[in-house]
């Protein structure tokens, strides 16, 4: 197992390096001069040149690339030319909000989606199943930002229960939670739809297995069959696909952050694009990619824990 973990981590490194190279290239081909973007269109040629020098933009591209990789390795994400703040500090201040939102949505999705999926599969073609199918289809079809707007309209404007915008004070649990409910719901419904659907189909697949029929035949009570034989086997795809959907959620969190004006990586990224703040943009893209690689790695490893048939040799 340990060997496999090391092997998997080592496997991720080349992909990460290519990802970093891609991000570096994308940011270099963005239209517009970062120095002009920082100083404004009316800045003098001398000041633009001075800033270009300071940002290292006059150096050959390969040297910029090596410096980029080098500073990333030491955790230095550079200084934003627009705000003058170190990007790492900005990222650290908003990252907990994005992670909290995503985690809340995943929790919400699994807590409600798994029981709903099970009941839909067990009572197949019943009213519950039909309701669940319509509900999860709606959940998959509604864009998270639109749901966010509807929730704001209902729960912040018509019935002012929750705050309209902002992320609240992160370390103040009450304030934080109040600001998390609506964004968490907007994103959580999407996750719930995914989880309900895959739980239903995973359970239906397992219900067809011979060992389930055997368990029934030898007189094991229904609930025990469901928990011991069906659910444990169905969990494998449910958890595995959960990792995949966590990646989708991280992407969708951008929209939720924007609708609710919540601090977060997504809001930072979109702000960076609009202000042409290339240092920040580059760093945020790197963080997103690292998050995805880590989630994929974690999903692979969790597989082994829940499925004893998988041997890491």
């Amino acid at each position, binding site marked *: 197992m340990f060997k496999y973990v090391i092997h998997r981590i080592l496997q991720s490194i080349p992909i990460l390096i290519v990802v970093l190279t891609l991000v570096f290239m994308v940011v270099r*081909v963005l*239209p517009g001069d970062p120095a002009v973007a920082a100083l404004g269109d009316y800045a003098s040629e001398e000041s633009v040149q001075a800033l270009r020098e300071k940002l290292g933009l006059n150096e050959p591209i390969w040297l910029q690339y090596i410096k980029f990789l080098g500073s990333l390795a030491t955790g230095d994400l550079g200084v934003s030319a627009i705000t003058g703040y170190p990007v790492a500090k900005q990222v650290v201040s908003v990252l907990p909000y994005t992670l909290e939102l995503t985690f809340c949505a995943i929790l919400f999705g699994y807590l409600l989606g798994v029981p709903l999926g099970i009941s839909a599969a067990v009572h197949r073609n019943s009213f519950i199943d039909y309701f669940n199918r319509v509900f999860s289809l709606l959940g998959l079809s509604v*864009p998270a*930002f*639109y749901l966010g707007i509807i929730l704001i309209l209902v729960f912040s404007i018509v019935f002012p229960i929750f705050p309209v915008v902002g992320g609240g004070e992160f370390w103040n649990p009450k304030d934080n939670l109040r600001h998390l409910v609506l964004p968490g719901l907007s994103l959580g419904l999407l996750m719930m739809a995914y989880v309900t659907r895959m739980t239903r189909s995973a359970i239906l697949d397992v219900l067809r297995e011979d060992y389930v029929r055997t368990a029934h035949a030898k007189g094991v009570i229904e609930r025990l069959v469901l928990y011991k034989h069906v659910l444990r086997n169905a969990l494998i795809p449910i958890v595995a696909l959960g990792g995949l959907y966590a990646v989708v959620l991280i992407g969708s969190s951008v929209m939720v952050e924007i609708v609710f004006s919540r601090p977060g990586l997504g809001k930072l990224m979109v702000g960076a694009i609009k202000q042409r703040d290339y240092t920040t943009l580059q760093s945020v893209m790197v963080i*997103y990619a690292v998050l995805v690689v880590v989630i994929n790695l974690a999903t692979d490893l969790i597989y082994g824990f829940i499925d004893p048939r998988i041997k890491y040799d």
Partner: protein
Amino acid sequence: MAEIREPVPVDGVMTIGISQKHRMWMAFRRNKTAMFGGIMAVIIVMVAIFAPVLSPYDPLAQDAVARLNPSSLAHWMGTDDFGRDVFSRIIWGSRVSLTIGILSVLAGLVGGTAMGMVAGYFGGKVETLIMRAVDVLMCFPDLILAIAVTAVLGSNLVNLIITIAIVMTPRFARLSHGQLLKIKESEYVVAAQAIGAKVPRIIVRHIFPNIFGELLVAGTLWVGVAIRLEANLAFIGLGVQPPTPTWGNMIQEGVDVLINAPGISIYSGLCILITILAFNTLGDGVRDMIDPRLRGE
């Protein structure tokens, strides 16, 4: 050995002697949800095509006197901040969403499938190169990749189609690659190789038709994903630029006047929801139709 299937009763009729296509169509017709999705999708496409005929007003015509009017007989969905008719703008907005949604998925399907099939068929270094490139692109969540590419290319209709096609390409590549690996060693492919068929012929005549079903299902479902991506980009301000109406930028405009005229955001969002719903149910239906194991369930 090819599996010999038992005749499947569809609509209570045994289907011996009925062609595969006809059988699929009967299965599709029986699936009410799929039919609903299909009919909705056709209606939405029709609305987009006949937008000039259907819209009661010019979507760009401003009227300073009729700003933020509520729903009325003259303006079914009210007017926006510039006094433009929301209903007409929604009808015209369907064009952008559908054009980008359908064309980007088609482009992604062609590009991604070609990449996936070439990688799977030839294996070796070609496969490593192509599939690792796909892995790299898949390291970015869809929207993040789309935002980055839009920032590079700029946001007009053609560039948005290219952007979303770039996001869709790795998905199709991975799908077609996986499917191809499944059937690569099957007898009919080996037989075609044995009688000396050329590689392009094997890929086009023997492999592609057998993985087309999966691609069609995914493509239909991913039209919904593409439409949502376009709406997301438009909402952020990176989509087709105003005053051209798109559902995404209409929601965005509506948010500014949410308290006074919630209808603008609500109606535009509903259109996105219904369109994605239509393609999702259609995709599900096509899957049930193609996969014989699900037929009749």
